[in-house]
């Protein structure tokens, strides 16, 4: 059990944010012990919830002055343990920093606090015919600040790009509490260094974004959604290659395999996907309505030529939801099949997907594990999900070994260790698969520039630093 904070410090923090928002009681801290990586439980020393930029900066300054490590935290939905409090750190959470500060529909930018939840932002700007494009699967819970930390993606990033494309500026509270403005929609993005680009995706290690300026897009006029049912993942992947080869750029292309389909159909989320299918492919086009039927028709032809046994088309919004159901509920469904689920996140060159999936199947067989695969077919970002029961320690060992083999395989074919969930705590051990000492040292250098004392979100991303918990 971590010792709580000294009383005088609690009092000073209380003066800054209100005593109610300095959480030190063990029972109130429980919910902050984990994030989406539920296998770990690291109790924080305390949790502080500021409401404004000034409060957040003041809290950081105070804690830094006392030499206390700080971990910034959004909604805690992250899947790599990025919001876990290592070394008895204090969590500074953004739950009360949830206001949209300004909206400029003419310039298609908005300024908001980091605790604004992803879908709430799109809802707020929808009356202006605008939306916020990055759509991670956790978007009904996750925050924009968390998206900034992880450089989140989502199914529609194939066409629209990831979070870093939509952040035009940040107010960053550095580890010592000093506030800096970087970027800005009215500034010249080619003048000076791209510090926004460096900070987005830095997993809360370079400071805490206390204000975020985002770019908005016009809502697409129309959307067409298809669901292709295939005998095998290889067929579905061939359809994807053909669609790209036609020169089409769908907004999203997602594949789930048989293992995942079966888990979904056996659950309360059953979506009507045939359980004897090898794979299901969701393809979505959006944009000007008049061109979409032609795009959808061509994609359908690609699916059929690749051997699809059927292609379903959504005729309205509710049918569209039905076609997406299997994919969107995949993780929730798998979470019900077994007590524990290891969600992996790697990216491989798209053309290697069939080979990689076959080899993952072989690994699953060899370790006697059930693995369901969900992947972003257009960009090769792959989520092999291993079902298990952690109370079975022998099975847990097999899961760990299998997941290491899967990761090594993905890197071997030219991929990387994380496509969107981040390194956090979970994948530090894999960083040396993709980077050598020179690259890791350069990352350490950049981190040291922003946080010379190493007190900000320690134990994340970079390997070789042992983290006492």
């Amino acid at each position, binding site marked *: 059990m971590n010792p709580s904070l000294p009383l005088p410090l609690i009092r000073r923090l209380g003066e800054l944010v209100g005593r109610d928002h300095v959480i030190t009681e063990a029972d109130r801290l429980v919910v902050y012990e984990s994030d989406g990586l539920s296998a770990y439980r690291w109790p924080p020393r305390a949790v502080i919830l500021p409401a404004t930029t000034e409060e957040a900066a003041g809290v950081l300054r105070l804690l830094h002055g006392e030499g206390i490590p700080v971990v910034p935290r959004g909604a805690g939905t992250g899947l790599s343990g990025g919001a876990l409090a290592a070394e008895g750190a204090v969590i500074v959470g953004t739950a009360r920093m949830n206001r949209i500060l300004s909206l400029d529909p003419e310039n298609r930018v908005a300024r908001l606090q980091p605790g604004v939840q992803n879908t709430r932002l799109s809802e707020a700007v929808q009356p202006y015919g605008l939306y916020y494009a990055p759509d991670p699967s956790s978007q009904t819970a996750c925050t924009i600040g968390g998206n900034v930390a*992880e450089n989140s993606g989502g199914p529609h990033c194939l066409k629209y790009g990831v979070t870093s494309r939509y952040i035009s500026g940040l107010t960053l509270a550095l580890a010592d509490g000093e506030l800096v403005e970087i970027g800005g*929609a*009215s500034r010249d993005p080619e003048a*000076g260094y*791209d510090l926004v680009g460096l900070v987005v995706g830095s997993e809360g290690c370079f400071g805490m974004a206390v204000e975020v300026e985002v770019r908005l897009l016009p809502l697409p006029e129309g959307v067409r959604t298809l669901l292709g049912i295939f005998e095998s993942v290889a067929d579905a992947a061939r359809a994807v290659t053909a669609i790209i080869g036609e020169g089409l*750029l769908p907004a999203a292309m997602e594949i789930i395999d048989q293992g995942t389909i079966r888990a979904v159909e056996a659950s309360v989320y059953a979506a009507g996907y045939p359980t004897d299918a090898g794979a299901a492919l969701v393809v979505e086009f959006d944009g000007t309505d008049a061109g979409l039927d032609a795009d959808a028709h061509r994609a359908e032809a690609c699916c059929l030529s690749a051997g699809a046994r059927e292609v379903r088309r959504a005729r309205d919004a509710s049918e569209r939801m039905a076609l997406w159901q299997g994919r969107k509920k995949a993780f929730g469904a798998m979470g019900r099949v077994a007590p524990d689920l290891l969600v992996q996140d790697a990216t491989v060159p798209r053309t290697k997907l069939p080979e990689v999936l076959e080899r993952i199947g072989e690994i699953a067989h060899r370790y006697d594990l059930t693995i369901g695969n969900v992947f972003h077919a257009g960009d090769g970002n792959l989520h092999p999900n291993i079902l298990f029961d952690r109370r079975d320690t022998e099975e847990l060992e097999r899961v760990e070994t299998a997941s290491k083999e899967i990761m090594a395989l993905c890197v071997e074919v030219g991929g990387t260790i994380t496509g969107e969930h981040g390194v956090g705590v979970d994948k530090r051990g894999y960083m040396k698969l993709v980077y050598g000492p020179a690259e890791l040292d350069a990352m350490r250098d950049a981190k040291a520039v922003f946080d010379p004392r190493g007190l900000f979100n320690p134990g994340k991303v970079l390997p070789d630093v042992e983290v006492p918990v």
Partner: protein
Amino acid sequence: MSAVDVLTGLLPADAVREGGTPVAGAKPEATVSPTSVEGVVEVLRAASAGDFGVVPSGSGVDLGPVPPGGPFVVLSTVGLKGVEVYEPDDLTMSARAGSTLGDIAEVADPHGQWLPFDPPFAPSRTLGGLAATGVRGPLAASYGAPRDHILGLTLVTGDGRVLRLGGRVMKNVAGFDLVKLAVGSRGTLGVVVSVNVRLFPRPEHEAALVLQAEAPDQLMTAARAVATAPVLPASMVLVSGPGSEVFGDPPGPDASVGAVAPQAALVVRVHGAPETVAADASRLQAHVGRDFRVVEGEAAAALFAKLRDHAASATVVVRVSTLPTRLRDAVAAANALSYSVQLAVNPMMGRLRAATAITTTEDLERLARTALDLGGSCVLERAPADVRIPLPGSGADGRVATLVRELADRFDPQRVLWPGKVLT
């Protein structure tokens, strides 16, 4: 030993020559063109040990306007050409930094793919230069900027370390994003020797929607309408001044007395499937409430190429950035620079480029102050050595300037790259 002597001992004879093309008016001691990464490392290590700086150069089109502040050699990437890996089905390519965008287009075009980057003089720019400058053309308004599509790059730091940053796949959040730090760092952190980039399928069909007027301010209302339309065009440019005649011929003898040739044009680029292009064109027309002239096929392609290079190569070229809604004032201020200024305005991205042969420092200062008053910034792209705009408070200051300096020093501890560089 002189720089030439040192380098001649390290590289093949044909890779070292004395002198070379001046950089912003400053003459280099030598120009070296290594043909391998090891050669680049040798040059940088020699510079660290010796007493000269290194200025990396691709096409050389974008090195100014401030000259290096000490003895230096130019490290040209002309010897580092070639596509290393191209996987059309993956939409990814790795190429050496000296490959031009034209070279890459030749390789990608037969596969129906392209890099949607259209800064001035794009075909002759190098991929390494694109990465080093992060330069945006009009297509960045819809496709994003080079920094959004550079998946990885290899950088040789000022002290000769080889860093393989990023990777070869589109979705990659492994570690801190040093690729984004390197892109746009303009050769101050290292020499980019190879780049992994994401390509796009070439659109099937494209069209230019054109409006003309006598002066640019007459087109700003239409430009704002397009910028806020529910349709997102591929790009939009507003050009004015000499060279902005879209359809060539000045008024003929039948034109009414006093007719003035159009000196400004608004050109909207739409592309996609033929049905999409037709639908987008009519939606935009309806939304703007004006009759565009439509140009298609090769004529459209030629027009986009011409517009791409407009207002980019006079004696003085200045770039102003601000919010799109404040561009009108910036356009007026830029137009006041001289009687024959060329403008290239990007109403979707809130930037403009002004090019002129003659202007005064006072006029440039006025433009810079207007930009600052509009909450934006003003950058000199090209200028004679004696013309500078002092811009109080426009660069980064305070803690950000410190962060930037410290980052640069981590990558280039001996400050070999771009001696005398101003980072912010």
